């Protein structure tokens, strides 16, 4: 067992930290969030130049042959910076799906473009009725000649407003919640019959509701084997969860540090409020939640390659942990910052909002407690 980072990993972390320090302070971030597009494509190019977008992919596809530890490092630092650009969606989730399920042609077509920052992807897996069940799909792709015709609606597709292509889960057979009969398709967002409603999300990102009306797909749009996509989607989502946990840890650590600093300087009743034992113990609990969350984040990122039951247990336990910890740390950071914590002006509330939304992403605490219990 080994919990140390390689020199390359440390360099990677330093370069992400430096980028955020130089380009992504809170005011800059807020400007991005309030801009028309809601992201900064120049930053995306910079990520490509720093090699972040290439980190997990094989060298033959323009990657650096890194793994979950590398994306974990990026996500933790992105969490610290509240980065809104769709790294999780494009690189970890969609990149992961292509990497796992794609044909050689799809991989060599798409992965280098992701790595180079030329292709942004979003994954349309959720549906309005489906809640967190990845198999609860009404969207259908009917065979038509060599290809398919896609109909359905997808919910809260994070990052979709910026995406060039979507990876869409749809039924090619089976009933609404069957585990079999699910397929993945790579769909051009500009294709006929695709309509979107874009909106900002509460945590400063962007998402879309997407409708597919008789969208014509050719056979090459199919990603992986027809009807057998669920295990692949679950594995990719678990990898995304591992990244999301790291992001949450980044958020929690910023909040905990900021709260400790604030309580050391903020005076009430003639002394720093950090002198009050109740607040001290509250901050100790925040600190412990950070540490436990970090432990679980390491754990899940190191276990993604184990067999399915182990991977599911790792991902769901980690997600449940960071959901619980994130709620506590976020709420207490706001509470201990008092009125200031409530304002839009201070960064604290924005980390809190992001942590709140992280809990609902890919399934909340309850969902993952049950998934963990079922796999145990």
């Amino acid at each position, binding site marked *: 067992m080994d919990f140390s980072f390689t020199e390359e990993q440390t360099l990677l972390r330093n370069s992400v930290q430096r980028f955020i320090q130089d380009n992504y302070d809170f005011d800059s971030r807020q400007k991005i969030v309030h801009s028309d597009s809601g992201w900064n494509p120049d930053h995306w190019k910079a990520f490509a130049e720093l090699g972040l977008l290439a980190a997990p992919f094989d060298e033959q596809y323009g990657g650096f042959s890194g793994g979950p530890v590398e994306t974990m490092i990026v996500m933790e630092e992105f969490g610290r910076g509240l980065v809104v650009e769709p790294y999780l969606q494009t690189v970890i989730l969609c990149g992961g799906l292509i990497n796992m399920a794609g044909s050689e042609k799809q991989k060599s077509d798409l992965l280098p473009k992701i790595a180079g920052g030329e292709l942004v992807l979003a994954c349309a897996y959720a549906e309005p009725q489906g*809640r967190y069940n990845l198999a609860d799909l009404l969207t259908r792709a009917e065979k038509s000649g060599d290809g398919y015709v896609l109909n359905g609606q997808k919910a*809260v597709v994070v990052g979709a407003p910026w995406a060039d292509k979507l990876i869409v889960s749809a039924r090619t057979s089976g009933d609404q*919640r069957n585990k079999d009969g699910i397929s993945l398709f790579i769909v051009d967002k500009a294709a006929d019959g695709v309509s979107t*409603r874009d909106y900002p999300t509460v945590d400063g990102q962007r998402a879309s509701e997407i409708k597919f009306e008789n969208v014509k797909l050719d056979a090459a749009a199919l990603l992986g084997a027809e009807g057998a996509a669920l295990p692949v989607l679950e594995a990719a989502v678990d990898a995304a969860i591992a990244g999301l946990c790291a992001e949450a840890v980044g958020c929690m650590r910023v909040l905990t540090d900021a709260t400790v600093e604030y309580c050391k300087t903020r005076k009430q009743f003639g002394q720093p409020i950090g002198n009050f034992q109740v607040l001290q113990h509250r901050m100790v609990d925040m600190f412990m939640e950070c540490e436990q969350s970090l432990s679980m984040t390491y754990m899940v990122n190191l276990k993604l390659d184990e067999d399915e039951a182990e991977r599911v247990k790792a991902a769901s336990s980690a997600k449940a942990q960071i959901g619980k910890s994130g709620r506590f740390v976020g709420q207490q950071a706001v509470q201990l910052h008092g009125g200031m914590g409530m304002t*839009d002006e201070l960064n604290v509330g924005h980390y809190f*909002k992001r942590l709140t939304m992280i809990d*609902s992403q890919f399934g909340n605490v309850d969902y993952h407690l049950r998934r963990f219990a079922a796999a145990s």
Partner: protein
Amino acid sequence: MDLQFTPEEIAFRDEVRDFIAAKYPAQLKGRRRGDADLTKQDYLSWHKVLAEKGWVAPSWPLEYGGQDWTSTQKYIFNNEMARAECLQLMPFGLVMVAPVIWTFGRQDQKDYFLPRIYNGEDWWCQGYSEPGAGSDLASLTTRAVRDGDHYIVNGSKTWTTMAQFADMMFCLVRTDPDVKPQKGISFLLIDMKTPGITVQPIITMDGGHEVNQIFLEDVRVPVANRVGEENEGWTYAKVLLGHERSGIAGVARSKQQIARLKALAADTSQNGVPLSEDPDFSRKIAALEIDLLALEYTDLRVLASESAGNGPGPESSILKIKGTEVQQRITELLVEAAGYYGNPYLRGMSYEGDNFPIGPEEAVGTAPEYFNMRKTSIYGGSNEIQRNIIAKAVLGL
């Protein structure tokens, strides 16, 4: 001991219910305090209907327009208002400044201000908190210097709710800086149109504009607008802080919110089954309902003790703590029930297109509401301060 309503009380309940059904302004239906699109006129429309009926301030002394209701009647009244989801009026005039005026004010102040408050002619805001003061109210630094018949006021107030609508502000100012913090404070009534007052919005993290920072620069306030003695303002403010705790638990509103939560959970499908039947979610709702039930009976006990002639005691800090905890947990569960549809954000940012709606209607705005409710454990004396009060005043620690 008895929980039954008398026939008279049942008749009263029906009267309140009928009144609301007949008179509640149609344009207010489904809208809640703090909603971004509520105008001053919206609030006043309901205020005036209640004033006309004589029910806008039932807890006031009879001579100023109050009602001699029993604690049970007050309980019934509040319950019915919440049950019908009536808009809650702002407390600054009716609940907060009025008692100070009738208790410590001069006759001419009572004669002038109380009817105007009653009839909604002045919108009041509260100038207590200052930037940097937080829960330590007495550390305020806004200065008022005597200049003939006026005070010249300089300083800043913050977290001033709905000051954007205000005609008047009741305000704590320091008139003597050379004594210990609780001394040397005076209580002024300030016309918001006086030159030198700037109201600057504070946007909260839910995107809403409820609170403001107020800057006072050489603001001339007539000495006649001081309530009570110079330098004794802290005493009056403390009385005010202890006054009228009856609504503090928010039981009736929380019942309505739980009904809303249950409706959302019943309409949300999870694996084809309503979320309301999910063991985890139904358990959380049940636990919350039980906590609210306990709060309701503690509230009733405090109410009974108050109407038996015991003043509002430090026990009412329980109502603040438990009440806000319940309110916060309800909004937490609303967000949980909304699932992915807690994400779309509706306030203060522009949207493109409206070709189809974003998620179920009941889910809309749940997250901002959750964020906004975090304030309740901070303001009005943070819940930590409330626990300090109980420790000291009740447990003698």
